[in-house]
């Protein structure tokens, strides 16, 4: 049995047929071919799959595509403005906030969410807010630096 879903992804209306069990991340990657969102652990621990649903950061491996029906989804592909990187992406580039890059889409999604909710977050708070994102290269220092710098860029923008 399939369910027809329709949602806004990165500003565009998309629709498709999914099964009840189809995860949002499967819908994004396999049906919409938006493969920037990664599946790291598939057990809602690592945060590589973080996207925004109706403005909230969520783990797309632990939400059904059907639950996202009618929502507004933003993935890593929706952050940049054409060839111009989002200030948070630019900050990650400048501060080398990545090593292998696998966790980066989730780190960016969470980083952007932290700054939006807590524009003045200090380093300790940023670290706490990153508790749902794991970097297996353990490059946390530069990720935290990048988010702090991204916050400054975002407030200046």
């Amino acid at each position: 049995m399939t369910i027809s879903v329709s949602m806004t992804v990165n500003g565009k209306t998309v629709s498709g047929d999914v099964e009840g069990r189809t995860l949002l991340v499967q819908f994004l990657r396999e049906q919409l071919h938006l493969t920037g969102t990664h599946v790291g652990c598939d057990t809602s621990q690592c945060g590589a799959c973080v996207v925004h649903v109706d403005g909230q950061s969520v783990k797309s491996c632990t939400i059904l595509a059907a639950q996202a029906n009618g929502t507004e989804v933003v993935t890593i592909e929706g952050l940049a403005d054409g060839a111009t990187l989002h200030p948070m992406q630019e900050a990650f580039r400048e501060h080398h906030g990545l090593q292998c890059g696998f966790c980066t889409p989730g780190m960016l999604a969470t980083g952007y969410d932290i700054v939006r909710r807590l524009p003045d977050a200090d380093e300790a708070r940023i670290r706490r807010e990153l508790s749902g994102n794991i970097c297996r290269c353990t490059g946390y220092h530069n990720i935290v630096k990048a988010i702090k710098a991204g916050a400054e860029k975002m407030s200046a923008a």
Partner: protein
Amino acid sequence: MYNFEYNRPASLDDALKALSSGDEVKLMAGGMTLIPTLKQRLAQPSKLVDLSGVAELKGITVEGNAVVIGAMTTHATVAASAEVAAKIPALTKLAHGIGDPQVRNRGTLGGSISNNDPAADYPAALMALGATVTTNKRQLAADDFFAGMFTTALEEDEIVLKVSFPIPEKAAYAKFAQPASRYALVGVFVAKTAGGARVAVTGAGEDGVFRVAAFEDALSKNFSAAALDGIAIPAEGLNSDIHGAADYRAHLIGVMAKRALQAAG
């Protein structure tokens, strides 16, 4: 995960109809435990009823001497609520300490207590504050609601609507979190209520959340960390696993209770 039929009713009546439709139906609140459970094929419902469309299950109000929280209210909403922070700040801290930000954006009070994970945080708050659970059928005291590991008094056709938390004189929650999962290895909620002191422990008991009568008796006379000096918690009936042996958890109960009392002031 096995496939299932997905339903998202827009009202409580429709949810109840779907629940009694005779199939093997499972209710889904935030899904933060249920979806991983389905992935592991530990549950195989033929129909999933997503309660997120039922508006009447959401919201926070102060009613008389109680804070009333709708079952589908997320942990993030509770953590950010000015009413909760003003009336029961211990609950703010507890909600803010569940899982991680993404889990708190989806996970709900009703889902947490209905699942009754033996290491979940909310059951300790309900037990220590003497909360009342309202379902579509009845009202249940927290002491009667929780019935052992992953078990509650809920019947098959029963849905939690809201929880009423009486506002205590003082309360605090101290959790020793398992660093990977953020579940409580031991979590202790202490409350000074009109009816005396109440202490509830999560994460440690083989049968899930439980109250500590010896602590409550001592704290009803003197609500301070010093009142617990010399009261040992027996290791019998406590969990032993790779994260901590029963005697370690028994010791932690005393430590976390004292930390909670210091925080409660």
